[in-house]
């Protein structure tokens, strides 16, 4: 984490700079099935973040050495568009996006019923079009909706959420300033029905009590985002029925 409280992030009235309460998340909007070329897709706006995800497959896994005899492999690419941040990002994979892609794939492999598709591959393409802290979580939320839209069986949805600490106070869903100048960040991928954790990272400094509060906030937010995911899929399904696709 960046600084150590040299910038005031909590107002005197106890609210955050953007007026949110400590356990309040940014606004989330989700649309399913927005990319006609893909087998499944989703668009997620979370605060000022925008993530788009496309799913292709299940398809033949090649090269052959990546095939698994008993299950499908999930091939995730998390990528930030060059214009998604205030300084342009050079196109191409970097160490950060590779790591995020890897742990995101592993999180998705724990919810998708991969054993139904031996020797095949499911491609999950996550593109971050606008970034304002928490993009890996937004990408995960989008991936779950895109997989469901593609009709790929899962044992639960998965929701990406983060809590953290600013000025010694635990808060839900850090924005950019809070991420830059805060003291801890705990992004998680949560299975909203069972409460299991499929994605877990953290950096900064948290006491056990603070961690538990973060966990409680994340679980609460996961339920809220899950409802928005389901609503998006329902609207997509109604559209499909009505549109006769």
């Amino acid at each position, binding site marked *: 984490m960046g600084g150590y409280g040299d910038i005031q992030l909590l107002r005197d009235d106890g609210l955050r700079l953007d007026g949110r309460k400590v356990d309040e998340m940014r606004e989330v909007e989700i649309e399913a099935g*927005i*990319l*006609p*070329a*893909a087998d499944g*897709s989703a668009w997620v706006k979370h605060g*000022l973040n*925008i993530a*788009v995800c*496309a799913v*292709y497959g299940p*398809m033949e896994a090649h090269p052959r050495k990546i095939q698994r005899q008993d299950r499908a492999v999930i091939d995730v*690419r998390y*990528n930030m*568009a*060059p*214009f*998604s*941040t*205030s*300084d*342009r990002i050079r*196109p191409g994979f970097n160490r950060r996006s590779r790591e995020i892609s890897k742990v995101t794939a592993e999180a998705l492999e724990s919810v998708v019923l991969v054993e139904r598709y031996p020797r095949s591959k499911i*491609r999950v*393409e996550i*593109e971050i*079009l*606008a*970034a*304002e802290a928490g993009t890996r979580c937004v990408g995960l939320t989008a991936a779950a909706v895109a997989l469901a839209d593609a009709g790929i069986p899962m044992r639960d949805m998965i929701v990406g959420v983060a809590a953290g600490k600013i000025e010694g106070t635990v808060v839900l869903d850090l924005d950019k300033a809070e991420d830059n100048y805060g003291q801890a960040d705990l992004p998680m991928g949560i299975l909203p029905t069972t409460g299991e954790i499929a994605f877990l990272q953290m950096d900064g400094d948290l006491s056990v009590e603070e961690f538990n509060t973060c966990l409680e906030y994340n679980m609460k937010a996961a339920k809220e985002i899950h409802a928005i995911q389901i609503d998006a899929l329902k609207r997509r399904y109604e559209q499909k029925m009505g549109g006769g696709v």
Partner: protein
Amino acid sequence: MVALVPSLLRQELANLAEQDQRIDGRGQFESRQITLETNCLYNAEGSAKVTWGDTIIYAGVKFEMRTPWPDRPAEGSLMCSAELRPIAGRKYEPGPPSPESIELSRVVDRGIRESNCIDMSKLCIIPGEKVLGVMIDIHVLSDCGNIFDACALAAIAALRTAMIPAERFDIGEDYPLPISMTPTMSSFTRVGGRYVLDANEEEELGGDERVHITLGDEGHLHSLQKGLRGTLTPAEFAEILEVAQSRCAELAELVNSKEA
């Protein structure tokens, strides 16, 4: 899927062309529906989203402070890059930029650069030392045919709404990018033996060569490109150029209607 039987598809397209029909019911020089949104991306200094039939493209503009090219010490620079990332379709693979994506970037780049729509001398901050570089990045999210025209439209629309973040570079107040023209592209693909405007995915799959025409404000030509295997006659070119004249004017009007 038709992709598995391109020869059957070619036959079908040829039969349709003979009856002056297209596979999706359009006329020979009729475009699909286009919607254009501008300023739709937080963090980009100018941005546009183009939905062209089922093809979806985003373009974002960023600026950077850089040292000028030695042969043009008092001019800013332009860089246009189109990424065909694997999100765009089933046929796209991860890896370094493919020849197709490099061609796409360069054809779009030429149309904008050669029209001189951006006054590069106004992007000079200190001659020989500091100039502004304009970077347009185009992201293809869904390729359902004719990404060239859609990319060119997204790029010029994003540029026309771009604000130079002068405050961030400590050179005064933010101001709009000085841009004076609206070059747009019209592409034609030979399908079933004749040229059609705005080929869709199936027509590209079962078609032959394509011709990309970028025209500026006065209908002047700024960039041409012939791609893929095949030849065309001067008479055929004259016919599609005439179509491009009216089509490009319509597209420019669409872009100009979005300006603030």
